[in-house]
Every structure is written in structure tokens, then in C-alpha cells.
């Protein structure tokens, strides 16, 4: 069953499309990350789900209920039963931690004793049971975001929407809260739609990642699939900084493999059964230095601890830098090398 379903949803600001023809289904209990560079429309998409924006086209359903149909229906946010965690935590500064968590329950007219129990439980879940009577400004940044999470969970929403909840925290806090989100998601089985611009965060947390660019959905896939089989050049570049190179020819071979010509060298690429373009996505770990291969010169060797990344300038295409993962001692800068392509992916579309 789908917890959230968007059908060709579009939203324009003036002439500019913020979200264009997005189709997306999120299953119950699934953790979906909306990933993309700033201005790609991911936050607008989340606000469309929450009801703070109304779509110009398409329909949005939450559970079995349609909540928005362009021009016809717009259920206001307060009647959608979704929970939201904001980047700025958005705790009400004039209420204690407990009152913040209690607010939504009061609105739902849950009787006092039960309400207090729910507040306690929600705060215990995030490990802040002791801080019930604190003021939000007495808490640390990480604790505030935990309270915001408890506030959201206490109302037992059908969907939890998170708008870059970790963006304003420092690196260490971010990691510990990521672990906490992961645990809570497994433990509570909540459906979560999570906006982030940080690809490693999306990869670490999500069951599926939806990549957006210029308001359009580029690809929706599990993290591994996204990395290994990017649907577009944008995804290839944005996720793990893949190198997109132009091919001379590409001839479909046996199932799942393609023989292609790249700067005069014959290479083998993985590919989809259907759909092919004249571009490939290469990753540093799929390349190695060898006896034969693409002739290049070492431009720069960047030491990264476990390995060194060699930036090599291709002889046939001097404006292209290939990054090669190299574990042995690096060759001197400027020395000629041959680059063998062990693994690559034929991009399925020309986009």
C-alpha cells in the first residue's frame, strides 16, 4: 500500500517551474530521501505534501485519501495528519519541551492522563525524558532537534516529513542523529520523506533515494542502484561525482553488456536492456593503471589516506581529467600512463 502518492504534480512560481510533472509513490514504512542541489525543488515538493503549497497540476494522496487535486481540492496542512521536522527545529520558544510535544495532542483532544503518557513516551524514545520541563533555549542544538522529532512522533502521523533536519548541526551531531533516525525508523516503522542536499546522508538513511534536478525527478532507486546505475548524467555526476565521458560508438553485445569505443580504445560497459545513449559513467574505482588502455598524463596526485586519486589528463582529449583510484605509490606528476577501464556504465538516456 502507498503511504504517499504523487501523480504528475507540477508547481510554478511565476514562469519558473519549481516542481515539474513529478510521479512518486512512497510505500508504508518506507524511508525515501528527496535529494538534489539547492533550488532543485525538493523542499517545494515536501511543502506540497505538507499542504503549505498547492499544486498547479496533478494530484497528491496521503494513505487512501486524496489531499490535493490541482484547482479542485486542497486539504489544509492541519487536516492532513502529517508530521514535520524543520531544519530550524521550529520549537515554540514560549512553551516548555513537554508543552511543545503536547500541543498536537491537545488539539486532538486526547484526555489528560493519556496525553501525559504519550508525551513521556515520545520524549523517552528520543532519550530526553528528563528534560520535559526545560525551556527549548536551555537545550543544545542536537537536543532541540530530538525534541522536534519527539513532537512529530507523538502525534503518530501517517507520514513524517523532514526538511533537512540535520543541516544546521555540526558533523559529529549529524552522525549520531543519523544513527538515531535510522533506529527510530526501524523501530517505529514510520513512513518518512526526508529532504536533503547531502548525498551521503541520503545514501546512509534511505531505502530509496529520489533525485531531483530543476524540478524534475531524475531517478528513484535504492542507494546502491543509484550509484551503480545512474539514469542520467546529472545523477551520475551528483551522486558520487561520477565522470561522464562521450563515446565514439556503442554496440549492444550480450545481455547487460555493451562494447564501445572510447578515444580509440575498445571498452566494455554495463547497460540496461533497453535504452542507450552515447555517454558512459566512469568511477575512480572502476579505473586502474595498466600496460594498455587510454593514454594520459598524470596531472596531480591527491592523497586521500587509504588510496590516492590520480587526476590524469587524457592525451586525445586534453580538457578531460579522469580520476583513477590508485593504491600503490603514485607515479610522478607529468609522467605518461595508460588507463584501463574495468567497470563502467552506459547511460540509458541522452539527458
Amino acid at each position: 500500500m502507498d503511504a504517499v502518492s504523487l501523480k504528475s504534480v507540477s508547481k510554478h512560481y511565476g514562469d519558473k517551474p519549481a516542481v515539474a510533472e513529478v510521479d512518486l509513490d512512497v510505500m508504508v514504512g518506507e524511508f525515501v530521501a528527496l535529494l538534489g542541489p539547492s533550488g532543485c525543488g525538493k523542499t517545494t515538493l515536501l511543502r506540497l505534501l505538507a499542504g503549505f503549497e498547492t499544486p498547479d497540476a496533478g494530484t497528491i494522496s496521503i494513505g487512501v485519501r486524496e489531499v490535493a487535486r490541482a484547482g479542485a481540492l486542497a486539504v489544509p496542512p492541519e487536516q492532513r495528519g502529517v508530521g514535520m521536522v524543520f531544519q530550524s527545529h521550529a520549537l515554540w520558544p514560549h512553551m516548555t519541551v513537554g508543552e511543545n510535544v503536547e500541543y498536537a495532542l491537545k488539539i486532538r483532544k486526547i484526555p489528560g492522563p493519556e496525553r501525559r503518557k504519550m508525551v513521556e513516551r515520545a520524549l523517552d524514545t528520543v532519550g530526553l525524558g528528563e528534560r520535559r520541563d526545560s525551556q527549548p533555549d536551555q537545550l543544545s542544538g542536537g537536543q532541540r532537534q530530538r525534541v522536534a522529532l519527539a513532537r512529530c512522533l507523538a502525534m503518530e502521523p501517517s507520514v513524517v516529513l523532514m526538511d533537512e533536519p540535520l543541516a544546521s548541526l555540526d558533523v559529529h551531531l549529524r552522525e549520531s542523529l543519523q544513527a538515531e533516525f535510522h533506529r527510530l525508523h526501524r523501530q517505529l516503522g514510520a513512513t518518512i520523506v526526508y529532504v536533503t542536499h547531502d548525498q551521503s546522508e541520503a545514501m546512509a538513511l534511505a531505502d530509496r533515494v529520489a533525485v531531483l534536478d530543476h524540478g524534475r525527478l531524475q531517478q528513484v532507486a535504492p542507494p546502491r542502484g543509484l550509484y551503480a546505475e545512474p539514469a542520467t548524467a546529472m545523477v551520475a555526476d551528483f551522486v558520487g561525482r561520477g565522470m561522464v565521458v562521450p563515446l565514439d560508438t556503442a554496440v549492444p553485445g550480450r545481455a547487460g553488456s555493451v562494447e564501445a569505443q572510447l578515444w580509440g580504445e575498445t571498452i566494455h560497459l554495463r547497460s540496461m536492456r533497453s535504452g542507450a545513449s552515447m555517454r558512459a559513467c566512469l568511477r575512480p574505482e572502476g579505473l586502474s593503471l595498466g600496460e594498455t588502455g587510454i593514454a594520459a598524463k598524470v596531472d596531480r596526485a591527491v592523497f586521500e589516506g587509504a588510496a590516492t586519486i590520480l587526476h590524469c589528463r587524457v592525451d586525445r582529449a586534453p580538457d578531460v581529467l579522469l580520476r583513477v583510484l590508485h593504491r600503490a605509490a603514485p607515479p610522478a606528476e607529468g609522467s605518461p600512463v595508460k588507463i584501463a577501464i574495468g567497470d563502467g556504465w552506459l547511460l540509458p538516456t541522452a539527458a
Partner: protein
Amino acid sequence: MTNGAVPKASAVRVTVPRLGLSSRGGDRLLAGAATALVIVFCLLPMLRLLMEAVLPSADGSLPLESLNSRSVFRAGTNTLVSSFASTVISTLLGGGFALLIGLTDIRRKSLLTLLCLLPLLIPSQITALAWIKMLDVGTPARAVIDVVFGTESNHPLYGGGGVSFVMGLEHAPLIFLAIAAACRALPCDLVEAARAAGASHRRVLFTIILPLLKPALLAGGALAFVSAIGNFGVPALLGIPGRFSVLTTLIYQRLNGFGPSVLGETAALGLILALLAAIGLIWQRWVIRRAPALRTGGPTGPILPLGTARPFIELAAWLLLLLLTVVPLAALVGAALIPALGVPLTFETVTLENFIYVLTQYQPTQRAFLNSTLLSAGAAIVTAALGLVLAYYGELRRWAWMRALDAVADAPYAVPGIVLAIAEILVFLKPLPLLGVSLYGTAWILLVAYVARFLTLALRPLAAAMKQMDPTMEEAARLAGASGPRRLFSIILPGLRASIMSGALLVFLTAFNELTVSALLWSRGHETLGVMVFSLQSEGAAGAAAAVASITVVVTLAVAGIATLFARRLPKGTLPWMP
């Protein structure tokens, strides 16, 4: 070096800046002069007032004892009651319009805001006069009132009710500004979080927005209350003829009736006023400090839609605002265009007689125009120069005692104007040492009092600009060998032109309309416009008073327009009517 040749190390001529007294001397001279002026103009009078009020007078009696009289008690009670009532009116009007403009999707917000802030530009005595004219005998508004409430011979606004009402209108912008700023700073996500939690618009308003705006409301209310306590223009025009006496008018009438012999007694009265004001201001700071801190960064200024009621609410808002701000001013101009009180304004009766009279025939008003212009310009120039020096050494150089002077400069503006006037009389009544002449009875005491009172208006934008300034500019100039005053004039000053101009124009504007301080310090030959409006009206020269007031309003609005041009690129809030 000029032809690009690299000099040999041994050939580099190092010019060592002259150190010691000479390089520090300029700083000390400039800062010392500013310090002396601030101490003599601002600090000394306040201390002198305190002494005069507390220490026994020549005949051995304590001035504070003289307060134990029925008239003082009545005036004190009237002050508190009318100030409280006017604060309630200010809160309802200023707060209501601030919420309407700040939080809803009402249209033409900037025009509405301008109308809401118009009373800031119109001084109390002119607002009071305008309302008198609007409801004078023979006006359509008075006819309506006579029909509804029955014919009264007295003006309906004379007395405590009128004083409270007009002061309430006059100070509503203070609450409007406080609430409007708080609405703008309100993070949207706090409202969105509440809506996601299931709260309706109405519930969001009452459980989230209003509680968060409460500190601003209380702080604005405290300011309105303090302003009402110190207000003189409104009770002078509406209270005195209605036999409704407040502390400010009581002080004025005593000093006017008995002269400097009652200075000790009025100083004691002034001290009471100053204490009331201090309590209000301390409370205001306390409320602001206790307010919960709002995160900044994300979008702010949440909007609640008015829905289908919007056109009706807009119509009501416009009608009310026009009635309260523009119509009285129109009535004022109308009253200046009729030959005598009670004559209806028609094409047959309209006349420029009053304007011609005050501009070309009646010498005191002619003098008043000249005096007010010169005094205001003088005050603007002196405060700008003084403010520049104080802000430079206080904010950029972080000299501790100059920062202390910054707080001292606030005092004469924080206390009610009438209190400052008494304090200046106390210091400058006696002949100056060495010179042997007294400033009292000359135009100079007005200039001194204006500078003391309005210094903070010129200082605030300059201090804010200095605080924002990149300190490395100043440090680079210092390494280049420029002395303090030289850095101030060649490096700092050019970047501050807009701040200086808008601050100076604000001082000019405020001084040009001044009544409270001038009412005690003016003398024959040294009349000011505020005093002229007041005395013409109380002498029964209604048309002349309206003409002077009308001209003043036009000049004020013109100067405000020029100041607005200078402040376009300055931080918001530099000019009070540009939030």
C-alpha cells in the same frame, strides 16, 4: 618607487610616524571637547535637577514637601489615569493595525503603514489642534456630535477624555512599530509547525503568534505610557481649557505664573515625572530581555489569509485610518482657510487672510518661523558633529568613557521634555562663569536644550553605522600613519554621509516641531513655532494658529521626504517612519 623600480633594502626610507603627545593630541582634543559639551549640556543639568529637588532650599524647607498638596495629587492622579487610558487606546489602534498589516494578506501594505506612522511626524500640539478644529463649532463632525450627544457649549475634547484619546492616537505608532517589527521577525516555521500539528489559523493566532508577540506588545506599551506621562502638547491644548491638569501642565503653569522662584518645587515635580518615566523604561528593557529568543535565518513573517472577509476588512481599515489621521489634518487646513471661527468653509468664505497675516504681518509668527528654522538647523549641525565624535571613539575605537557618554546622551531624551527644560534653567539661569552673562532669556538656552535633548537621535544611526563598519579600514589607515582625527575625517566620514544626513534631518524635524522644552525656555523675541501654535490658540487666534500649524505640517512632511531619500540605502529603522 614611481617608475616601478624595486628599491634596494638599504635605500628604503622608513618614515616613522611621530609618536607621543602629538599623535595622541588630536584624539584627546576632539574627544575632550565632545566630552565637555556632553557633560555641560546633558549630565550637569540632570544632576543639578536631582540636587535641587532633594536638597533643602534657601529657606530651609525641602522641595519634596511642597508636593503634598491637593493640586499636585490631582495632577499626579490625572497623569497616571490619562496615560494609562491613552496606552490602552494606543494598544488597540497601533497593535490592531500592526497585526492586520503584519500578519494578514491585506493589500496595499506600504501605504497603510505610512498612514499608521503619520502621527509620528505630526507633533502633539498640532494633532491636538487638528482634532479641536475637526470638532469645532460649525464643522459637520460637531453637528453630528451635537445631534447624538446633545448640544454642549464646551468643546467635546476639552478634558480628560479628549487628552487620553488624542494622546492615544499620537502614541499608537510606538506600539505599531514594536508589533510590526516583531511580526516581521516571527519565523514562519513556528507557524507551519503548529499547522502541521493540526492547529487551525485561529488557534495558531491565539496559541503561537500572540504569545510570541506579547513581549513586543508590553515593551511598546511601556514606551507609549512613558511618552504619555511626558506629553505636554496634548494636555496643554485640551487639558488646560478643560480644567484637566496633569503634571506637565502643572509645572508649566506654576513656572509661568510665579517665575524662577518656584524652581525648587517644580524640580521636585519634575523628579517625580522622571522617576515615572524611568520605571516605564526599565520595565520595557526588562520585558525585552526576558522575551524568548527567536531563531533567525529561515523565512519570517507568516501570513494568515483573511479569506472572503478581506474586502470588508480593507474598507474598514482604510476608513478608520483616514478618519483618524488625514481628516483631522484636512480640518486643520480648512480652519486656516476661513475668516473666523464658526464660519462654514465654502467657495465664498475661503480666504488666505490667515496665512498672509502670520507670514507677512504678525511679527511674532514671522520671528517664530525664522527662530525655529535657525535653532533646528543649529541643533542638527551640532548634534551631527557631536554624534560623529561620540560614535567614532565609542563604537570604533571602543574608548570606555566615550561609551559611557553614549548612555549619558540618552538621558535628556528619555526624561520628559519639561523635566529637561527645568534642568537646563537650573544650570543656565545664573550668569556663566568668566563671561558673566546668563543664557536664560536668550535663544542660546533653546539651542543648548535642543542639542541635549536630540543628541541621541543623531547619535543612534551613527553608532549603528560605526558598529557595522569594517574595522580593518580604520586599522589600515592607522598603519598608513594617519592620526585619529584624520582617520575620522578622511576614512570614516565619507562612508557615513547618508547616516549623518538622515540623523541631522531627523533632529531638524523634531526640533522644528518642538513645544515641550521650548514652552519653558522661550522668551519675547525668541519664540518658536510650537510655542506660537499653542499661544495663538490659547489667546483665541484660532485661524492664525491653524495657519501656522498647517505651514509647519507642510514643511515637516517635505523635510521628512528629503530625509527618506537620504535613508534609502541605510539599514531599516534608521528613520522611525521607515521600519
